[in-house]
């Protein structure tokens, strides 16, 4: 019968005293209440979110991404947060959210010209001319004659003019996005982990629903992990002004069809192996199949005069409805004492004719136990899709598919970055990362016609990326 109520820590203190008493008699170098006290008072140390099996804990991650392209182009601010809860028996639940605000000028796909160019596009709100002013990125609201067979209300368009010898960009681009995701995982019978997840993302003109399931199994005294994940994504595109007819002339008409869908199915087969005490390697093979609407509904391709190279028409782009891709990904982590090296390589190939290689290297250097720096570098090179054309030539037969989206052209992207981390306590960490990303491609392709020889035909992108994150583990 326990009559007196025990106060917090009393049993621990008496056991500590008893043990110290025993050991003090036997071994002077290790004993002493003072040493024991300093052991219990010690709160320093590196980050350790391993509460061990049998303990419930949660991890909260919050981060902010700030992205800004040079030359007044796209900028984005993206706050994100994730909470994951780990139960004693290996079950995990995580929920997260992302908000996204994007604005800035974006290349519309047309080539530059030695003459000023006019572009007309549907205004973003049907019939609400008052809310879209001419101040919006230098655009003008114009009244269009009604077109037979189209919606009667389509009377307004947005027109913008691009000066001579300038990359045509649409400056009226801004959007918000919100996304939510959740995942559940647990051990099941002899299976190390089985899990499901789902996500929902919404923008003003796009919606995405994702669902996935995965299975992983540890072998060989937990040195080997094999995993399989199945992923699906169902997207709907409902652009302002409706879905343009592929390869039709760009105008400001509202189209009757307003929504097109895309389905993506894929799997990732992964093998993770602890090779030695300090070397971890991972090999993934991923296959994806996309089918449905994959066009950028706002993007156009210039048709140029076969002699002068001056753009005469703008056509909406068109991409194949089906795309299969394969990627091979190999990641290595090497712990070399004070530094940790992470080197990953990827080879990607798809049915559109794109082949790419990626190499990503990061070297983490711990500065004492509380700080670390991690410089990083990334190299990326891709070949062009087989329907990529910087422009089409007037008088020639139209190809079935055409895009001038530089993201489907050939280019090299390089990133340099540095990260600084501060281990605030064993349970929390704060870090900032700055990166600079630049694309370079062929600005003056052979065979350019007329005035195009003088133009820069690669709309190069460069961007500064800042990332701030905080991670906190708690009971």
């Amino acid at each position: 019968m326990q009559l007196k109520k025990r106060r917090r820590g009393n049993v621990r203190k008496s056991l500590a005293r008893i043990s110290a008493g025993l050991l003090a008699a036997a071994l002077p170098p290790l004993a002493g209440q003072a040493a024991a006290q300093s052991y219990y008072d010690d709160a320093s140390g590196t980050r350790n979110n391993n509460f061990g099996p049998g303990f419930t804990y949660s991890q909260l991650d919050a981060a902010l991404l700030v992205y800004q392209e040079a030359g007044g182009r796209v900028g984005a601010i993206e706050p994100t947060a994730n909470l994951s809860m780990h139960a004693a028996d290996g079950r995990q639940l995580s929920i997260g959210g992302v908000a996204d605000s994007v604005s800035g000028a974006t290349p519309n796909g047309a080539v530059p010209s030695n003459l000023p160019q006019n572009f007309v596009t549907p205004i973003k709100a049907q019939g609400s001319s008052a809310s879209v002013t001419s101040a919006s990125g230098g655009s003008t609201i114009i009244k269009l004659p009604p077109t037979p067979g189209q919606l009667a209300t389509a009377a307004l368009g947005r027109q913008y003019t691009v000066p001579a010898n300038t990359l045509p960009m649409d400056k009226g681009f801004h959007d918000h996005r919100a996304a939510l995701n959740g995942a559940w995982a647990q051990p099941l019978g002899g299976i190390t982990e089985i899990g499901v997840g789902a996500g929902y993302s919404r923008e003003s003109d796009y919606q995405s629903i994702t669902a996935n399931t995965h299975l992983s199994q540890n072998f060989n005294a937990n040195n080997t992990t094999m995993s399989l994940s199945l992923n699906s994504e169902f997207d709907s595109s409902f652009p302002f002004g409706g879905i343009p007819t592929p390869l039709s002339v760009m105008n400001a008409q509202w189209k009757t069809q307003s929504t097109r869908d895309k389905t993506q199915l894929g799997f990732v087969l992964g093998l993770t192996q602890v090779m030695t005490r300090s070397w971890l390697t991972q090999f993934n093979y991923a296959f994806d199949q996309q089918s449905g609407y994959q066009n950028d509904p706002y993007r156009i391709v210039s048709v140029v005069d076969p002699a002068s190279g001056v753009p005469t028409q703008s056509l909406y782009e068109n991409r194949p409805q089906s795309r299969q891709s394969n990627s091979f990904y190999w990641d290595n982590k090497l712990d070399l004492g004070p530094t940790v090296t992470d080197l990953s390589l990827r080879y990607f190939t798809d049915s559109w004719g794109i082949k790419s290689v990626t190499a990503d290297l990061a070297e983490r250097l711990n500065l004492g136990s509380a700080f670390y720096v991690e410089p990083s570098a990334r190299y990326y090179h891709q070949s062009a899709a087989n329907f990529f054309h910087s422009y089409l030539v007037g008088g020639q037969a139209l190809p079935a598919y055409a895009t001038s989206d530089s993201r489907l052209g050939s280019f090299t992207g390089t990133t340099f970055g540095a990260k600084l981390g501060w281990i605030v306590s064993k349970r929390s960490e704060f870090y900032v990362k700055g990166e600079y990303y630049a694309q370079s491609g062929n600005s003056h392709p052979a065979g350019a016609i007329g005035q195009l020889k003088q133009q820069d035909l690669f709309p190069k992108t460069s961007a500064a990326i800042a990332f701030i994150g905080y991670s906190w583990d708690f009971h």
Partner: protein
Amino acid sequence: MRTAARTVFLAGMALALAGCASLGPKPWEKDLMARHEMLVDPYPLQTAAEDHVYFSKEASSGGRGFAGGGCGCN
């Protein structure tokens, strides 16, 4: 030529898999592996943000995980 290359590749895989059975450190040698920075993906939000940037600027995606982007930015 191609067949020969494939055979060599498959043989390499088989060798690698057979090697796995005894590959890797003993449990008490996993001290370094237990460090946070040796996790396969120690900073998932940072990885997701970087993947999102590259997804919206490049034609290739996936490999580390699912290729989908969950947004209309590409």
